[in-house]
């Protein structure tokens, strides 16, 4: 600890305090039987996770976790909870066997983890292999995370985008109902709440603008398609919660959402095929322009756009499916 005392101690301290808070949140979460409290606790846990990711220099990941983990998943869990109206039952017997198994697993994993390099050891193998090459900025995009995501590991990202698309399609298959008449039903809305109405009206344009900023500034700062898509969807979800689902569906109709859901993946694949047609490999951006570096920028731009479109489509569609089911359920009663 001879080096500048402040740096090491403060950074480690911040991370460790946040870790303890997270462990505490999970402990309470595991013991609580009130499912509403469980959902709120999992939101808090996700937010702590986002904070710790900032402390660990993973700003892009932190942004995604804050938008997805603390935002969208909490909304989805609350939606599912509303549909299931459930309180956790008391188990018939003490769960000794799971506890024993968990402790044994923990013991083994900690034993194994002790052999891993120290926290923040600059000589650890993880810092020796490919990371130095990524940091040389071959494609001239300041945000290395964006460069790796869209260019170096483009195949990986394509796969992930397809998984997100597939999950969206699966949810449509599970929750779709063939025909129902929408007879001008208002649905649940907070139209009487003046404060929410005014604040919502003021905020929503800026949320959408921020989503676009995150999308197109992703090359230079934290951001990119995954975050932007979620934030964009969150803006519309906010609108739906305040002004009612039907109004939101008039602004962003189901057809459009379903088109977006597929269009993003197709755009991504299209960029890959464009590389093929221009004489390169699949997802080879160097051939997309006379200047290879400019070609990279072009490829990254369109790939990120594809990711953003699909992610926003899927997030919105999922919310629509859950919300409209709740609405009909409520009307049947």
């Amino acid at each position, binding site marked *: 600890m001879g080096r500048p005392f402040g740096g*090491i101690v403060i950074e480690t301290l911040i991370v460790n305090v946040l*870790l303890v808070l*997270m*462990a505490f949140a*999970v*402990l309470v*979460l*595991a013991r609580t039987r009130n*499912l509403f409290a*469980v*959902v709120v606790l*999992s939101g808090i*846990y996700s937010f702590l*996770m986002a904070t710790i*990711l900032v402390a*660990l*220099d*993973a700003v*892009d*990941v932190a942004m*995604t*976790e804050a938008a*997805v*983990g603390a935002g969208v*998943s909490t909304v*989805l869990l609350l939606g*599912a909870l509303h*549909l*299931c109206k*459930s309180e*956790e*039952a008391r*188990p018939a017997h003490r769960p000794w066997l799971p*506890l024993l198994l*968990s402790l044994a697993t*923990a013991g083994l994993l900690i034993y194994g*983890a*002790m052999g891993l*390099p*120290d*926290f*923040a050891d600059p*000589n*650890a193998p*993880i810092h020796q292999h490919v*990371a130095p090459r*990524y940091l040389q900025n071959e494609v001239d995009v300041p945000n*290395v*995370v964006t460069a790796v995501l869209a260019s170096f*590991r483009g195949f990986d990202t394509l796969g992930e985008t397809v*998984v997100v698309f597939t*999950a969206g399609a*699966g*949810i449509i298959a*599970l929750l779709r109902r063939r025909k129902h008449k929408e007879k001008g039903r208002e649905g649940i809305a907070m139209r009487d709440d003046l404060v929410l109405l005014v604040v919502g009206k003021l905020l929503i344009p800026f949320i959408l603008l921020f989503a676009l900023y995150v999308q197109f500034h992703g090359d230079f700062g934290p951001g990119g398609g*995954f975050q932007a898509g979620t934030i964009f969807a969150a803006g519309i979800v906010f609108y739906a919660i305040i002004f009612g689902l039907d109004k939101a569906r008039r602004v962003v109709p189901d057809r459009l959402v379903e088109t977006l859901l597929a269009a993003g993946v197709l755009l991504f694949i299209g960029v890959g095929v464009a590389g093929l047609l221009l004489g390169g490999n699949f997802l080879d951006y160097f051939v997309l322009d006379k200047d290879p570096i400019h070609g990279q920028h072009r490829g990254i731009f369109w790939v990120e756009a594809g990711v953003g479109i699909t*992610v926003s489509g*899927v997030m919105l569609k999922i919310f629509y499916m*859950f919300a409209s*089911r709740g609405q009909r359920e409520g009307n049947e009663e």
Partner: protein
Amino acid sequence: MSGGVVEHFTYIVTVFLMVAGLYIVMARGNLIKKLVGLSVFQTSVYLLYVAPGKLIGGTAPILAPQYTVYSNPLPHVLILTAIVVGVATLALGLALTVRIKETYGTIEEDEITAADNAVQDAEDAHS
């Protein structure tokens, strides 16, 4: 190189979170609680990946002339996509839960099994 508990504190907490998620999935019968446990398990993996990439005194991997030390960008990329896939699969699980609730009228594992057994018994009695 090899340190003690202090140097491996992040790993230990990661393991704790992971195992807590595992325990919730195994021990709790409520399907929504199980899914929350699953997502805790999933989230702990984020730490497992991102924490080793951190360098003390480093900064986020967004290149600028005034910085020389950057944390490792590769785990960030892997986890960023994992988060979005994670919420998509969570939503799929929740959709299944909603359908189970509509079919069985409950989302407690024991009661679902009991209902299944009752149907099975009735069929056996018929044949």
